């Protein structure tokens, strides 16, 4: 598996899910994977260093993934950061809301390793244009 230099932050409030996602990403060759349990933790990481891709759950207590997305989109220095929603939320209304808010991709749980590398690379490339 080729090693990727993309830096990724996984934002997920279920600890076991965070570890699981990080393991999947590392197994796929993404070596720069950090995790955050909340929007606030993710914001601290994003302040400290450049991040290529954020993979974020929708419902995070007390904030939401959409709050983080809006924050990222408002900051000019984060315009190169791709945002991928990863959630169990699959009602059409909510999916459209996320797409309108500017997610680069939307993935419904459970995550599948197949095709994930391409999706991450595509989302990152889209933001680097």
């Amino acid at each position, binding site marked *: 598996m080729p090693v990727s230099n993309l830096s990724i932050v996984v934002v997920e409030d*279920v*600890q*076991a*899910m*965070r*570890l*699981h996602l*990080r*393991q999947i990403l590392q197994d796929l060759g993404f070596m720069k*994977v*950090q*995790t*955050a*349990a909340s929007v606030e*933790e993710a914001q601290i*990481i994003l302040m400290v260093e450049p991040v290529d891709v954020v993979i974020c759950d929708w*419902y995070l207590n007390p904030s939401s993934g959409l709050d983080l997305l809006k924050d990222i989109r408002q900051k000019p220095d984060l315009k190169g950061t791709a945002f991928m929603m990863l*959630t*169990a*939320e*699959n*009602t*059409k*209304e909510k*999916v*459209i809301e996320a*797409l*309108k808010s500017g997610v*680069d*991709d*939307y*993935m*419904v*749980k*459970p*995550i599948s390793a197949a095709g994930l590398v391409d999706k991450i690379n595509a989302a990152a490339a889209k933001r680097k244009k």
Partner: protein
Amino acid sequence: MMSQENAQESKAGTVNRQALIDDFVTELSEFARVAETTLAEIEKDMEANRHLFQIFARMMLTIRGTAQTLEFKNVVDIAVLGEEIAVKAGGADTRPKLRKCVGSLWDVITSVKYLIVHHQEETGDEQEILINRLQYTLNAFGGARPKVDQDEIEKLLREMT
């Protein structure tokens, strides 16, 4: 917690799968406990506390998402119905409808709690009966909200970006 996790990252290597499942089950049980507590609170005053159905629905969604990852199909089947019934309950316009929803949600939470712990059991007749009963209740309230699968999402993404 984040910094500990990220610091451990380089040392962790392969996460032990059984330990990971145990962690998942522990967290799922905690979500179920929150849902149960929320339902008990709703029952104290169904009208005044109807906004809490949203929290119950969110707990069910979290349980469903995690259970899908673990392929705990029995938990997923019940949690998705619990989530939808809780959403309907929030908009129920009469007290009997509210009571009906709350009764169904107690069945949901009792079953989900059991199934999280006994996730290796095959689907039994009792679960099938419960699923049918919950589906019947949900249908009586207008059915589940429209959902989209990953293929439809990809299509929406292409259309909107």
